[in-house]
């Protein structure tokens, strides 16, 4: 008879690593998404090109390859990262590239009429973006940001490949030591689902808050 409590504890330790990766990866992704998304809308050609190059590169190559570059290739350029740093970097930049397009789309969805009102009221481009466009664009971004965050959560499983002891890595360890596949993998199945569910609930709460008073009525 196997004493499962120790093994489950191991998986829970891994679960914490997964949570950490998801939170830090999402934070990086969010920052990058806004920088690149707004960068694509810049009036400066150089900024637009830079943002577009980043987005196309990170959407066009696999997270797996990006992770290996961050962990195994960057040291040749003199940049050595811990597995956690490499994981956060690859996940954040990868998901941030998708998020950038969400930011761009939402900002563009705020119509010409709002922009023209800003010009007529003599707001600067920055003031218009900060006070008028972004506050209205943000609620439009939230549903897709929720999707992206869940994608990122599930993407964290690849970091086990660079020996980071996340939930999936620990499940493999438990499987190797006990010979049981069902219990460790059923456990992480439930844990992933619960985490994704928490993200969903959080996003729904944010959507409700952000949508207050707007109600989609033309003004």
């Amino acid at each position, binding site marked *: 008879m196997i004493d499962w409590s120790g093994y489950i504890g191991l998986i829970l330790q891994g679960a914490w690593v997964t949570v950490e990766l998801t939170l830090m990866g999402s934070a990086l992704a969010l920052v990058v998404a806004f920088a690149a998304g707004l960068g694509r809308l810049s009036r400066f050609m150089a900024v637009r090109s830079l943002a577009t190059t980043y987005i196309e590169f990170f959407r066009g190559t696999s997270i797996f390859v990006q992770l290996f570059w961050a962990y195994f290739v960057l040291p040749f350029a003199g940049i050595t990262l811990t597995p956690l740093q490499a994981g956060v970097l690859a996940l954040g930049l990868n998901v941030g590239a998708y998020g950038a397009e969400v930011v761009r789309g939402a900002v563009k969805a705020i119509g010409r*009429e*709002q922009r*023209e*009102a800003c*010009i*007529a*009221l*003599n*707001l*600067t*481009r920055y*003031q218009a973006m900060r*006070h*008028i466009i972004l*506050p*209205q664009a943000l609620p439009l971004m939230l549903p897709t940001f929720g999707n992206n965050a869940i994608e990122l959560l599930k993407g964290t499983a690849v970091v086990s490949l660079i020996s980071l002891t996340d939930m999936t890595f620990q499940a493999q360890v438990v499987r190797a030591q006990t010979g049981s596949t069902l219990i460790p993998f059923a456990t992480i199945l439930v844990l992933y689902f619960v985490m994704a569910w928490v993200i969903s609930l959080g996003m729904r709460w944010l959507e409700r808050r952000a949508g207050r*008073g*707007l*109600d989609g*009525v*033309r*003004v």
Partner: protein
Amino acid sequence: MSEPIIRIDNIVKKYGPLTVLDKLSMEVMPGEKLALIGPSGSGKTTILRILMTLERISDGFIEVDGEHLYHMKKDRQLVPADERHLHLMREKIGMVFQHFNLFPHKCVLDNVTLAPMLTKGMARAAAEKRAMELLDMVGMADKAKSMPAQLSGGQKQRVAIARALALSPKIMLFDEVTSALDPELVEEVLNVMRRLADETDMTMLLVTHEMGFAHDFADRVLFFDRGKIVEEGKPGDIFRHPKQERTQAFLRKIIAAGHRV
């Protein structure tokens, strides 16, 4: 005799191959109330949009309050205006739009105080005091805390007028401000504008299809067709004794469509 506050000199506006304004010139005196009428596509709204710097001109010059709008002096040469120059010029001009363009995520009061606080550095208390005076003038003081989505079209437009006035522009542009309103809401907006015309010496340019209102409101009426001013004069002359064939045809159509003159 004072100088014109707006001087438009041979401006051309093209969208690709389409010429919307064709070497158009006109002048507006300070305090003058001007009605721009004409068929849609005649260029009258484009004039307002150009004055508000929402559209650029393809050729020509515009002076507002003694300064070039789209040009500035640099080493004694006239060069195209930069964003900073446009920013300074926009202080003189306010605009009210057909579709109100209120900020849906801000309450009525914040819609009015936002620009004075951001562009003039006004303190919140002072901006709110001024906003409440303006909202009172347009009859919307009791809705200061409402969101735009809770208002009727006429109420939104009155808030939009207060919002534009909050920056104390010398020139106000009204672009078909009652066209998007249900008929029974038109009068409340027109009343506000009548009061504004009576009580202030602001220069006002009005693009409208409300001929009766144009008649009462304007000192001078300009009839536009195909990018040119076909006829201009006092409202009584334009509406009762139009000289040009095209003006007569336009007014006949408008009257046939049930608009009162």
